[in-house]
């Protein structure tokens, strides 16, 4: 066959039936919350499409994102999509190494110029012409710019690629930057998370192949997955609304599954789908395992203060005390609640200062 096999053909070449493909499409459509008409379109378009070429470049990263993707339970949607795309280059997964690997990448780029999808995992150090991260004599900076030139779109996988992540954490010794700081002239989608949920990575690739760039939020993340906060969809949310909080990790509140806000949960300011899609084949997510959300899918999450102090502590630079009750009652909108408590706190401080003054004299 001269032409590349279509996605449906490559499914069938692997011994999977058309019905398996239709089922895969139904599951993908459900994952992407597509309306009925688009779900049918998904199966039709995806089936007839040539296998897309994907070039996966890894830079300043820990390989956790790739682990998330490949260690998911098999065979799952993630496996299926990765079996049906043509992964032309991934230095961790491919058998070839050194010059042979680079030659394979160049060949794939030449054949699919203007059409391939570039997936970047990890941040890129920018100073000194990218001298802090050099692979095969070529800097990460030069590589990403070269490969992005022929890409139809760029997908930044993981918080490091999307926002700079841990390499960019203070004092950012290598001058790491995010992919969006370097690539300005291509459609770019950020899939943040440390690591991101595997279904989100593959779901976004499927959506992009079929319908193009999905609707994105202010951080260029697909709204379908990053449209709500963890807190919005958290099963512990009713306890927050009732003002029932765990005060330590082993008190009665913690054992009763009360809200982890006071223990530093960043759920209210973190946009991701952990609470609904969950992890490890739908088993649970961090809050369900008793630990607050770290906010790993948000920019600068590493430098946003203490993981174990409540969000409101950052506003007050101090202890929280009884004001939390008010935060909880105000409930639904954290910003409003925090502002309210901050104001309450200020009022209280002023009153205290005023009362104290006469005493001091």
């Amino acid at each position, binding site marked *: 066959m001269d032409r590349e096999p279509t996605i449906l053909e490559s499914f069938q070449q692997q011994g999977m039936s058309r019905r398996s493909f239709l089922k895969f499409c139904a599951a993908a459509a*459900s994952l992407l919350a597509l309306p009925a008409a688009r779900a049918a379109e998904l199966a039709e378009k995806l089936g007839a499409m040539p296998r897309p070429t994907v070039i996966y470049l890894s830079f300043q990263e820990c390989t956790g994102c790739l682990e998330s993707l490949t260690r998911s339970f098999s065979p799952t949607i993630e496996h299926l999509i990765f079996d049906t795309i043509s992964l032309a280059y991934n230095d961790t997964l491919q058998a070839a190494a050194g010059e042979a690997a680079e030659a394979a990448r160049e060949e794939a780029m030449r054949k699919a110029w203007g059409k391939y999808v570039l997936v970047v995992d990890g941040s890129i150090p920018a100073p000194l012409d990218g001298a802090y991260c050099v692979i095969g004599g070529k800097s990460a900076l030069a590589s990403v710019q070269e490969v992005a030139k022929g890409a139809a779109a760029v997908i930044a996988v993981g918080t490091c690629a999307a926002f700079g992540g841990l390499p960019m954490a203070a004092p950012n010794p290598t001058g790491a930057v995010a992919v969006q700081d370097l690539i300005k002239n291509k459609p770019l989608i950020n899939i943040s998370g440390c690591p991101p949920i595997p279904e989100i990575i593959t779901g976004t690739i499927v959506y992009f192949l079929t319908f193009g760039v999905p609707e994105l939020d202010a951080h260029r993340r697909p709204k379908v997955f990053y449209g709500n906060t963890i807190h919005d969809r958290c099963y512990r949310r009713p306890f927050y609304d009732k003002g029932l909080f765990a005060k330590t990790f082993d008190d009665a509140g913690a054992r009763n599954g009360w809200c982890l806000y006071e223990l530093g949960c960043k759920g209210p300011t973190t946009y991701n789908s952990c609470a609904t899609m969950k992890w490890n084949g739908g088993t649970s997510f961090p809050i369900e395992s008793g630990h607050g959300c770290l906010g790993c899918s948000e920019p600068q999450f590493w430098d946003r203060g203490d993981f174990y102090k409540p969000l409101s502590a950052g506003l007050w630079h101090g202890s929280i005390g009884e004001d939390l009750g008010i935060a909880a009652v105000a409930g639904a909108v954290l910003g409003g609640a925090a502002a309210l408590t901050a104001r309450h706190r200020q009022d209280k401080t002023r009153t205290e200062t005023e009362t104290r003054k006469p005493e001091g004299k």
Partner: protein
Amino acid sequence: MKPLEIAVVIEPRDDATGMVAAILRELEDALQAYLASGTTHVIDLATLPLGPADRAALQQTLGAGEIEVRINALGASLLRETGFAGIWWVRHEDVEGKLLCELLEVTDVPEIVRAYRADIEAASARLCGLTALPN
């Protein structure tokens, strides 16, 4: 050592949300659209906040029809005709039995049941190979 007294409070939320009435209205429209123009429709149950009470009520209202189709492709799929001809309750599971998606499909026969022409052509060629006389 004294064992911890762990009391986990589980508050059952068994109230109907009123979602069932909305689904039935949508199905009513979808059936009429199918009759008028042959347009098929799908409702993805995972996208709707259905509680156990809603689910039970929906199942009871739709009832069971005459056909159940079981498909073995990437795990089990169960397609059940409801008591209303043209409305199918479809459940797709993966190989480990985990639910992939649950749909209400409005159509005569769900697409996934049909055998495709290309597949029948391949089958025909294979069968010819089997029955060909040895030279």
